[in-house]
């Protein structure tokens, strides 16, 4: 179709419709050093959470993962910010939530509220993550390998203790568990 007058519609680079791919090419939109920076990402997330009304924000680093937990859900139940640069009122004019940068640059991203866990970006590492549960919101991300804090070098080589670590996908797991119980009940009464 290269000689067609419509050929430009077949060139994916002509129309950057994929917001995450676009952010990947523009790290400078979020990070002063023009590349993903874990500390800056944490600071932007904390800023978002506090501007969103959080009274307490907790930062944890474990096994290479960084998690930020706030006592309120600063995204108000909407995970769209993980998939496109979205501005927010409290951030002011030209603001952008930083969650999309996590999706673009990190190896894995998971978020959780009291309603369950939502896996934003999959990776084999996700099963190494602690169970997440929070009354507000938790955002956990696995920075790219070169960006993981030096203090976590030891954790990088540690063997995952799969007996104590497990990802829980909230409603899906509960729904299947209930369906299995219902099936067994029907079989017993048959």
């Amino acid at each position, binding site marked *: 179709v290269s000689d067609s007058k419509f050929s430009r519609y077949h060139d994916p680079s002509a129309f950057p419709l994929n917001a995450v791919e676009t952010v990947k090419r523009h790290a400078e939109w979020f990070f002063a050093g023009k590349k993903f920076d874990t500390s800056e990402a944490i600071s932007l997330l904390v800023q978002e959470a506090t501007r969103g009304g959080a009274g307490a924000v907790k930062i944890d680093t474990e096994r290479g993962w960084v998690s930020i937990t706030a006592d309120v859900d600063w995204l108000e139940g909407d995970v769209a910010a993980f998939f496109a640069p979205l501005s927010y009122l409290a951030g002011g004019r030209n603001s952008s939530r930083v969650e999309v940068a996590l999706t673009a640059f990190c190896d894995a991203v998971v978020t959780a509220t009291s309603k369950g866990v939502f896996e934003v970006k999959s990776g084999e590492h996700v099963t190494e993550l602690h169970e997440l549960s929070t009354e507000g919101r938790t955002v956990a991300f696995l920075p790219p390998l070169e960006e993981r804090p030096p203090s976590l070098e030891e954790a990088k080589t540690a063997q995952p203790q799969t007996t104590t670590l497990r990802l829980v996908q909230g409603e899906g797991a509960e729904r299947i568990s209930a*369906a299995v119980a219902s099936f067994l009940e029907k079989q017993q009464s048959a």
Partner: protein
Amino acid sequence: VLEPPDLKRVFGSERERGRALAEFLLACLALDDWQTVAFSRRPLPQDRRALLQSAEPGDSPELKLGRWVALYEDELIAVFESRNRIEHGLRISDGELRGAHWLATHLLELLQPVAVT
């Protein structure tokens, strides 16, 4: 007595998980086919009729299939929801996959005695 799956047990390796995932998706294809046939209101194809011949005297393959769809409607919905999450690129938990795989296999075994591999 049917043993329930241990939904708290994680898969030992990605390979084991991958196998369960493949078997689950394969079972879902078969379940989807059965459900389509059940809802089609057309006479059962001969090959499917043969699979349902173990129906009790006085029962018919059509009745057996209709009963299966009605009785296990909630379980089928739960299985297809898990399948949909997978098809949308979400990584479901080990417990959900283990449960969904177990459920899909047993739902299928009620209709066709051949194990899904």
